[in-house]
């Protein structure tokens, strides 16, 4: 394939449409007779609606309807109880959508929403996660289906007997996904059939959920998702916006469009749970790990159990004879947490890779070398050899590119004027998985080809990557291939999430292309269209369950203002082993994006909860800070030329999450190296480091 399209840096196919503004997003399609929906959030945390007075709202100019639990069309019970919106008067968390106002203009809908009067009976609430919360319990499993706890050897004895021990607790706050495009939908019912243009990460699954909730056949629901302005996990399933819009459209019997506001994205559409993580590590005097324990606490809601797999990262990352991991949850009166870029691995790696740094200091050993010493070719959790594990190569190449060799391990040893300078490292890993998918390939008489698959491009460049894979599989230049994605009339495909989109979609596309070539084998160009389809359900399901992971190593140099505590990054460098890279341009964008998001987690992002109100008070991008370009002078991402034949036909591992995993730890470790101060509660903001010259 080396002479083909895969591996070449093509610009995004939809780039010109996006930059000229002609690419349409969910609420940008012109629809005759369109109306506008506005979601009304509950003003209380926990309680019951006793009365809804819509008189004023309905009298407001342009308002057509107020949809609420008293008049909303009924929905069937579904797998996600939080999607059964406007069905009951019960309020489970502040901000829960309790009504939708539909009007002839956006502004009228918003004003109408303000005029809906709602009375509640309220009860006491609990919204703050603590490690001694009386509601702590052990879930039956953690996401998606991992055992809650694991144990091997005898951790307590192993830990007690070790000459070097680290026992540390890290805390991470709630993080909010904040894609640029909010959750947004245009919904139209025609003769019992539902058409939605929706912003999501997987139209096939959204269709299935809508069909279930509205009790119609999947064939009578069409979901179009041509362009998506990001999701970061929060659009991984059907969420509130699409359900509310479809419900409102059915109620008013007119097309409705609804986009959540930035403020409304903080909570009800999901967020990354806060975590409290205790990590205990023990090693011999040479830094060889003998005991590892990771105890993770996170929250879920009272409606639905979402058990973040925070400690799962620790099960397979480093080897030791005595190991234990546990997960505990608390049901709080909060919105249900949901996926956010590398759920589980991201917060878990922050804790473990920070603790490994603390252990390296306790041992008196270089943190790169300590990680190399504890590398393992066999998955400590499953006992099988990894299909490929290039953590050590990533660490070595990263160290070489970064200039790690000259590092003085002494904290606070480097100063540049008013700045204290330090460097940090962290490892990274993320599972390389694939899901069943289907795809269709068609040969046309003019020598061109059409490839169709209901994949989703959430801004990653997935459309372009699949197109490149398809061209090579068809054995033609990509210019002769047209690709259609993002529509449930196309062959069913899995979600853009879990770093498995490209692996899953390209698998089906390659099989469809192979089937088509088989059909075309004997002739020249066909006289009519020739089509072949593929469905990889059997093949993917029959794949042996081997430990397949991508790996990476982050290197960071920070400077910390000795007086004010301000933290800036001089540079951030990552080296990754993620299988075959289909498109260097979009791959680099994914890796740098993940690294930036990890940096943002380390220094900036924090959902600040006000317990009295039971919600996050900073709910816009002016007060919920994400990293800006000026915070980091240089970010570089590199990858190894890695070949792993146990993955999937395209040989890819996925790039969506590996860049964020471990990144926050590398920043935190660098801050410690610069200042001698270990901040174990993110974000590392200046108020925690102010006057650092007197702190250490």
């Amino acid at each position: 394939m080396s002479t083909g399209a895969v591996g070449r840096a093509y610009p995004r196919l939809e780039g010109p449409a996006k930059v000229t503004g002609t690419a349409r997003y969910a609420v940008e399609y012109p629809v005759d007779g369109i109306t506008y929906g506005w979601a009304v959030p509950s003003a209380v945390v926990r309680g019951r609606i006793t009365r809804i007075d819509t008189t004023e709202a309905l009298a407001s100019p342009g308002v057509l309807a107020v949809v609420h639990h008293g008049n909303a069309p009924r929905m069937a019970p579904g797998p996600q109880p939080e999607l059964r919106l406007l069905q009951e008067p019960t309020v489970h968390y502040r901000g829960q959508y309790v009504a939708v106002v539909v009007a002839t203009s956006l502004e009228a809908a918003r004003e109408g929403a303000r005029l809906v009067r709602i009375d509640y009976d309220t009860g006491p609430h609990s919204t703050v996660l603590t490690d001694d919360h009386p509601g702590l319990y052990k879930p039956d499993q953690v996401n998606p289906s991992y055992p809650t706890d694991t144990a091997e050897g005898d951790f307590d004895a192993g830990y007690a007997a070790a000459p070097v021990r680290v026992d540390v607790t890290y805390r991470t706050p709630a993080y909010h996904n904040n894609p640029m495009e909010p959750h947004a939908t245009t919904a139209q019912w025609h003769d019992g059939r539902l058409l939605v243009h929706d912003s999501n990460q997987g139209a096939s699954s959204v269709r299935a959920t809508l069909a279930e909730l509205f009790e119609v056949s999947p064939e009578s629901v069409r979901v179009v998702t041509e362009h998506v302005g990001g999701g970061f996990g929060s659009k991984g399933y059907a969420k509130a916006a699409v359900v509310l819009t479809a419900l409102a459209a059915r109620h008013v019997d007119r097309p409705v469009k609804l986009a959540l506001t930035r403020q409304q994205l903080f909570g009800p559409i999901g967020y990354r749970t806060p975590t409290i993580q205790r990590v205990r590590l023990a090693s011999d005097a040479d830094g060889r790990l003998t005991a590892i324990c990771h105890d993770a606490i996170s929250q879920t809601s009272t409606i639905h159990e979402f058990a973040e797999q925070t400690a799962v990262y620790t099960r397979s990352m480093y080897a030791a004879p005595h190991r234990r991991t546990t997960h505990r949850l608390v049901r709080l009166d909060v919105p249900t947490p949901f996926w956010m870029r590398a759920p589980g691995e991201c917060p878990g790696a922050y804790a473990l890779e920070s603790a490994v740094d603390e252990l390296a200091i306790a041992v008196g050993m270089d943190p790169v070398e300590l990680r190399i010493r504890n590398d393992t070719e066999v998955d400590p959790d499953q006992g099988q050899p990894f299909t490929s594990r290039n953590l050590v190569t990533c660490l070595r190449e990263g160290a070489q590119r970064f200039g790690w060799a000259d590092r003085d391990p002494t904290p606070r040893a480097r100063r540049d004027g008013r700045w204290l300078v330090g460097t940090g490292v962290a490892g990274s890993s993320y599972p390389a998985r694939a899901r069943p998918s289907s795809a269709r390939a068609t040969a046309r008489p003019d020598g061109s080809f059409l490839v169709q698959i209901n994949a989703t491009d959430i801004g990653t460049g997935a459309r372009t990557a699949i197109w490149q894979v398809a061209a090579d599989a068809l054995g033609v230049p990509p210019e002769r291939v047209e690709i259609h994605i993002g529509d449930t009339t196309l062959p069913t495909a899995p979600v853009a999430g879990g770093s498995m989109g490209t692996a899953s979609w390209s698998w089906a596309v390659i099989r469809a292309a192979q089937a088509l070539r088989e059909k075309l084998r004997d002739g020249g160009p066909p006289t009519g269209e020739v089509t072949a389809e593929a469905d990889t359900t059997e093949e993917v399901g029959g794949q042996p369950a081997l430990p397949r992971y991508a790996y990476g190593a982050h290197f960071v140099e920070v400077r910390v203002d000795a007086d004010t505590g301000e933290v800036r990054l001089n540079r951030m460098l990552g080296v990754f082993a993620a299988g075959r890279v289909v498109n260097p341009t979009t791959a680099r964008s994914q890796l740098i994006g993940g690294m930036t998001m990890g940096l943002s987690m380390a220094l900036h992002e924090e959902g600040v909860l006000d317990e009295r109100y039971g919600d996050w008070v900073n709910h816009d991008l002016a007060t919920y800070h994400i990293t800006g370009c000026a915070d980091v002078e240089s970010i570089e991402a590199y990858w190894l030329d890695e070949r792993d034949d146990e993955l999937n036909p395209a040989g890819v591992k996925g790039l969506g999450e590996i860049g964020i995993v471990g990144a926050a730890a590398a920043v935190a470790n660098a801050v410690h190296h610069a200042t001698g101060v270990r901040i174990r509660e993110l974000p590392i903001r200046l108020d925690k480091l102010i006057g650092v010259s007197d702190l250490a």
Partner: protein
Amino acid sequence: MRAFRYHRPADVAEAVAVLAAEPQAAYLGGGTNLVDLMKLGVQRPDVLVDVTRLPLDTVEGLPDGGLRIGATVRNSDLAAHPVVRRDYPVLARALLAAASGQLRNMATTGGNLLQRTRCVYFQDTGKACNKREPGSGCAALHGQNRDLAVLDWSEQCVATHPSDLAVALAALDTVVEVHEADGPRDIPIADVYRSPGTHPERETTLARGALITAVRLPPLPAARRSTYLKVRDRASFAFAVGSVAAVLDLDGDVVRDVRLAYGAVAHRPWRAYRAEEELRGRPFSRELAARAADAELAEARPLRHNGFKLPLTRAITVRALTELASS
């Protein structure tokens, strides 16, 4: 969003007359703050009186050596003005430390001075705020108040003024020219802003309907040696958690004159008179600068989450003055 009318007046007198006649009218400058607040339902004007086409968009030198800056001069243009850059670097730096390039292209001089606090409780109609809704209480006092005031707050309000520009103007003894229903009036900037007291909804001493038409900088040759330092939670596009505007005039190593003002510590841009007094007439040193800051902050009453603002403000005072002294 409440429906509103839009009016574009022909001149200042008409603008002021409309405001006098319409109890719920508001002036529209760049709209960078007002429009957000209208969407959030925090401000609900009936009429927007767009003043950006009025002939208030020039910067002119004055016979006394000072500078008059029209109220609708955009922040970007003011920051780039060669006389501002040469004679009042503190002003150019304050402007460039604020917001983003796009916002600075829109935001006006007058509007910047009258922008509202970014206290999260003020901006959320679902939460108690005396400034937004007098008598509803102050959720910030015992709430998430990391970003809020350490000086001069009241039980009714702990908000801070968000402007960087206003801090620089406070240090420069700026005169604010306003046009009220009964004619023009000059107000020293120190008299423009109010302490929150029992009426935090009243933020300035301007009469209702008053229009800022210009700000006038007095001649201040010492301001050629001036600076603005701003600390924020990320490197750009964020409001200050601490800021200082400083002008330093040394005679040898003795402080002949000094102007200091702080941002992010109070309901108003905070002119640090006590610190200035501590510095004036004494040989400059880092220690003196620190002592001056301490004198200014002696009466500070930090809230639960913002005690860090005291050492922060102290640190940037020392840094700003030390840099000026050695420049």
